[in-house]
């Protein structure tokens, strides 16, 4: 794609730390010594890991400290090379990254339930810090195969206490009891979950009994065109209106379309309610909503324009708008 696709930053690996079996934590600083742009909990960065590979990693440092960014990376044996390349990085290595971007923002609420599966703990860490600072009621349930595979588990337990941080290691107590954890919805409680697809699917099914919009998830996804570069600008042709709109990387389709005066019925504007569902006439979307089923997402006939975008490598979507 073109060079206009999101500014990149030159960074250097400051420290490398093994934080659990197969998990490294990298602290990154800018080579020019400048602070990073402010970011919010849930944000990630693109890391250009070489050979044209771009991978996204959630930030697990504090948004209060902008002199560095920290990411945690699980080495996935069958991965397409991203985590392997990251695991090969040494302190002092230079690499190209993006500014922090956020597809998993923390909405303000009175209570939170955080559910992490394995390396899915990373985006939740700044969220817990923010919830704690704001004096919100919150709990973390953190599941993993065993304690030694669970990055930051001890650190979180020490910092927040075992009443707020529940470590559920499978080799000690079995898997997460999701029926028990999610069987009793609480008023004004949002659920933020990040982890493997199977776990998130099971959480989604149970949260169908919660108020609509209570659940927010982040999947480690790769669309068929490859993960990573989906924050490129792209074009949307509005078939009914007869105009074409460019969607820049910092705007949603909904925002871009509304700016040219075309109305789209929407409600939550966060991929939660399904009101803005729009027919796709051509092009491949990258779905980022929590409404469409996996079958719907596969079929690619409709998308939620408040959050979803064109898939990487798809420069143009034609929508029934």
């Amino acid at each position: 794609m073109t060079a206009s696709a999101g500014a990149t930053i030159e960074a250097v690996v400051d420290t490398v730390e093994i934080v659990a079996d197969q998990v490294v934590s990298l602290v990154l600083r800018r080579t020019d010594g400048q602070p990073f742009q402010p970011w919010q909990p849930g944000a990630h960065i693109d890391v250009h890991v070489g050979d044209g590979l771009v991978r996204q990693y959630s930030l697990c440092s504090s948004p209060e400290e902008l002199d560095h960014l920290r990411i945690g990376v699980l080495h996935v044996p069958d991965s397409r090379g991203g985590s392997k390349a990251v695991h090969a990085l040494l302190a002092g290595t230079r690499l190209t990254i993006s500014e922090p971007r956020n597809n998993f923002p923390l909405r303000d609420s009175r209570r939170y339930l955080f559910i992490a599966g394995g390396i899915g703990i990373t985006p939740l860490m700044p969220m817990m810090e923010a919830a704690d600072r704001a004096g919100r009621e919150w709990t973390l349930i953190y599941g993993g195969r065993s304690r030694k595979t669970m990055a930051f588990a001890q650190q979180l337990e020490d910092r927040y206490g075992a009443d707020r941080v529940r470590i559920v290691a499978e080799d000690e107590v079995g898997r997460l009891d999701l029926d028990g954890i999610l069987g009793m919805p609480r008023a004004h409680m949002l659920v933020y979950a990040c982890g493997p697809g199977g776990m998130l699917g099971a959480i989604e099914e149970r949260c169908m009994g919660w108020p609509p919009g209570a659940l927010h998830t982040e999947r480690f996804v790769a669309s068929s065109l490859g993960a990573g570069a989906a924050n490129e600008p792209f074009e949307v042709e509005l078939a009914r209106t007869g105009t074409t709109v460019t969607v820049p990387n910092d705007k949603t389709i909904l925002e871009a379309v509304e700016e040219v005066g075309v109305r789209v019925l929407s409600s939550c504007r966060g991929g939660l309610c399904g009101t803005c569902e729009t027919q796709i006439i051509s092009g491949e979307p990258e779905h980022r909503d929590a409404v469409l089923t996996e079958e719907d997402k596969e079929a690619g006939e409709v998308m939620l324009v408040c959050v979803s975008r064109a898939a990487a490598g798809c420069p143009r979507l034609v929508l029934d708008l």
Partner: protein
Amino acid sequence: MTATTHEANVLGDDPFETANLLDPYPFLAKLRDAGAVSYLEATGSYAVAGYEEVYEVLTDFETYISSGGLGPRDIRQDSGWRPPSILESDPPIHTVMRRALTGVINPGTVRALREPFTPPAIELTEQLAQRDRFDAITDLAEKYPLRVFPDAVGIPDEGREHLLPYGNMVFNAFGPENYIFKQAFAHGDEHAAAVMRNCERENLNDTGFGARIWDRVADGLITEQQATLLVRALLSAGVDTTIFGIGNTLSVLARYPEAWARLRENPKLAKFAVDEALRLESPFQKFHRTVAVDTVLGGVHLPAGAKVLVFVGAANRDPRKWGDNADDFDLDRSASGHVAFGMGLHQCVGQPIARLEMEIVLQELLQRVAAIEPDGAPVPILHNVLRGFESLPVRITPA
């Protein structure tokens, strides 16, 4: 929430008095003027009329519980007229039932209904477009949902005539046991028995929502009784409300010819018109919740056990939320955030189906009718909690 509390203003007006049911809006304005939360002597309950406060009651399902029933009596103390529905339950009982319903009725399953739902709308509107006048309620609004919705649930043809009278019972029971309630319950046992029969698995076909709900019994999520109650909930909540939604939308559009003309030019706006009409003329106007623990709402102390009467219809016209023209239909307004379908945990599960039906009917009518105007005064229906019309005569110009 405000830290200081004040005594609730006490109102002598009765929201269930005939005049206030036939034309609720002067009363609702008076209610809002009395305060976001006030006390109604006539019913012994607290009235919640401000948008923000209604939203709070709907979203704080721990403080304002549903297991006390949606009517004026606390059915935890004094059992109701039927086994409690999903609407009359709290977590965790509510949770599994809601999971079962949401798994069955969601954007994907509802999208598939557009195809079977469209031809009956074409047929009905083609017939009506050949006449110069018709009754938008009896000739259209009442006909269409009864044509398509029972098929979507998968019930037999036999016994469908009981759906409307049963829905009338269910919703009127959210108000007091007045003469309207008694009329609705006149042949109550017969209607209830007929509807319950259609909720049994053996009486449902294999393709509808009903059978899909029963599938969840097989996988252990819900009990047979819960499956029956969920099918009952669909049948009782899915017909009247949509009829009123279609009727109310047309009642508004008949009064706003310029809006009709704009919709004809740009039929894409039909969804917005329906949403704004639902805000302005909300079919489900009010229902009760029960206060579970002492709390403060809108500065008023509410004791545990008290009943609050939630005025959705007042919230949807609250000028503090919608501005000074809250009582007007404005096609350019974003009605997003209205509470006509409720909000939060108990938010209408059938909402996408209702929206689909309303949109299809309106789209098909727009194609065939160039102009629509009132042809005499509409006759509002006398109902404890629903707002709608018995008759809405209109005159049309065919397209």
